[in-house]
């Protein structure tokens, strides 16, 4: 089992004719993802490696029965693309785009949350259920089917962690990059709940970083409800306050969002926090 996406996901690529959209469509297809349609307004009717392109998400839903969407659309138009997908009835939307204005995301979050739509991202690598489907930009080969769930605010740091897990012989049920922006569609908790219900998942790796309080909230949830082992890593212990560390959401401001506070909260909740970047794979292996 896996959560949110699997081999039956029929994926739509919004912005399929852009450079990134085209490149990652090919990557997803080689991984085995069923990319059923693409959307670029004005390019409707063309085909890209045999994948039909439509002008509107509605047409892709009506004609190809897509049920998951991945968005490669520049920041000024990305929120609109999310809303188009959500309005067209797509229930799982992955937004890769980095650089969406925060107030656009205030609007999007209000809209999708009140309608029960799952938005992964923005500013994220996407989601992969190894061996089944990849709806994202992560390198496929480092993944391996298995029983570890991974949730992360980061991109390459997640690849690093997944790679360690795979090398340690630990496969993954589903790996989700929830995104590095201040406002993202789903939180650690949203996916922890899903892993909680997912029988295949035996343990979860949670990769956090400075900024916000998502890790503290996750710690609270895990302590009160989550009954599988959780391993956490928090990036940014040496980050100075008041500086945005690459991710729009990775900033310590007003004394909030420090790595040490997050680590303390996680440890208080009984969660094993890995301090040494190189040792995650081995630590998880030894512990479960």
């Amino acid at each position, binding site marked *: 089992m896996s959560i949110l996406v699997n081999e039956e996901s029929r994926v739509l690529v919004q912005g399929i004719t852009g450079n*990134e959209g085209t490149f990652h469509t090919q990557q997803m297809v080689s991984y085995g993802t069923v990319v059923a349609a693409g959307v670029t307004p004005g390019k409707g009717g063309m085909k890209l490696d045999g994948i039909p392109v439509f002008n509107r998400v509605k047409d892709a839903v009506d004609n190809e029965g897509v049920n998951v969407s991945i968005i490669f659309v520049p*920041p*000024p138009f990305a929120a609109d693309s999310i809303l188009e997908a959500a309005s067209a009835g797509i229930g799982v939307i992955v937004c890769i785009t980095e*650089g969406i*204005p*925060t*107030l656009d995301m*205030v*609007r999007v*979050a*209000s*809209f999708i*949350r*009140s309608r029960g739509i799952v938005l992964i991202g923005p500013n994220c*690598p996407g989601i992969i259920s190894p061996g089944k489907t990849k709806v994202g*930009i*992560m*390198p496929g080969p*480092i993944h391996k089917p298995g029983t570890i769930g991974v949730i*992360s*605010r*980061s*991109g*390459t*740091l997640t*690849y*690093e962690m997944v*790679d*360690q897990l795979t090398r340690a012989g630990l496969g993954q049920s589903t790996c989700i990059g929830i995104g*590095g922006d*201040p*406002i993202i569609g789903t*939180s650690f908790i949203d996916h922890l709940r899903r892993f909680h219900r997912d029988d295949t998942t035996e343990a979860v790796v949670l990769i956090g*970083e*400075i900024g*916000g*309080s*998502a890790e503290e*909230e996750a710690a609270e949830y895990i302590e009160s409800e989550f009954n599988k082992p959780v391993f956490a*890593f928090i*990036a*940014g*212990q*040496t*980050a*100075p306050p*008041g*500086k*945005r*560390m*690459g*991710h*729009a959401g*990775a900033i310590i401001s*007003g004394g909030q969002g420090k790595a040490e506070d997050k680590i303390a909260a996680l440890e208080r909740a009984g969660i094993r926090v890995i*301090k*040494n*970047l*190189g*040792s995650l794979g081995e630590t998880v292996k030894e512990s479960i």
Partner: protein
Amino acid sequence: MKLHEYQAKEIFRRYHIRVPAGEVAGSVDKVIESARNINGPPWVVKAQVHAGGRGKAGGVRIADSLEQLKQAAKEILGRPLISEQTGPEGKRVTKLLIEEAVEIERELYLAMTIDRSKAEPVIIFSQVGGMDIEEVARVSPEQLMNEHIPFDMGWSPFVAKKLAYGLDPLPGPNTLKELTNIISRLYTVFMELDCSLAEINPLVTTKKGDVIALDAKINIDDNALFRRKAMADLDDPLEKEHLEREAAKYHLNYIKLDGNIGAMVNGAGLAMATMDLIKMAGAEPANFLDVGGGASEEMVTKGLEIILMDEKVKAIFINIFGGILRCDVLARGVLAAAEKTHIKVPVIVRLEGTNVEDGRKILEESDLKFMVAKDMNEAADLVTRAVSITV
């Protein structure tokens, strides 16, 4: 992006949020000239640098005469202001704000920001103004009022009333009306300019019933600058460290730190984790540098050049997990940089991911000496070793 106080006050004026009469000056002469246009003495002089704790650091003075004003301006202008937030080297003051003094009755606090967990804007109001709001939150959290503005509610005047009528004792009707107006206008500023923070601390009331923004702080959401050109134009490049300024030209995510191990990484999370690893290995990171998930050969070259400009750097750690950025591209970028600049410090390279074999091969076949690490643990060892050699 942070605005200066005087820029934020200019915006407030436009939105009819009252601020003290004032002018900006870049020289002592101009300070004196400005003072003649402004009601006084006394006057208030304020250093225009992005730094909290200006007052304690001597960046805010009250002058009771032109003499005192001149003296104050001389002492502040052109010198570094060293506050708890600037670091030991401080920030050079090039602009002063001269303002009329305001007779204060009460000092309040008003701010608007984004509540990340709720994904909603939130207005924060307190009857304890003029001091650090984090301090208030810690010491007397009951003095803080929060009102969220859900997107599907939008601005509703009751929110301003709810906050204003939370004051104890309640001010007079005029002051209450002014307060609710200012709260509503601050909301407009925030939404119309894509702010990430808009803060007035203190917001003061006077005996006459006026409500005045004595200080002003506005941060603009960097992601929204493409649609807020007027705000982007207010950016003061002098506020950035010179290497950061250089990096910004190439759209590199670079932050200067105080250590001696330079780091070049792809991806923000991995870059932070790499800094942490350097620290755990017994060294200090010299910088944060994320060349981006999809960096080009040129960006890698530029990134390396900028690290090398930092004279404190005694070793460089290149940590790449190739996803979108292919390891062969990275390797070529490193070689290009090495050819242009003269790398005299040890370089530790750790490559993983897409086309890793090609990348390693390119590096190994070059004339340059790299220490290549196979995994993070090996990289950590090499960093530790580099530190023990260089320090």
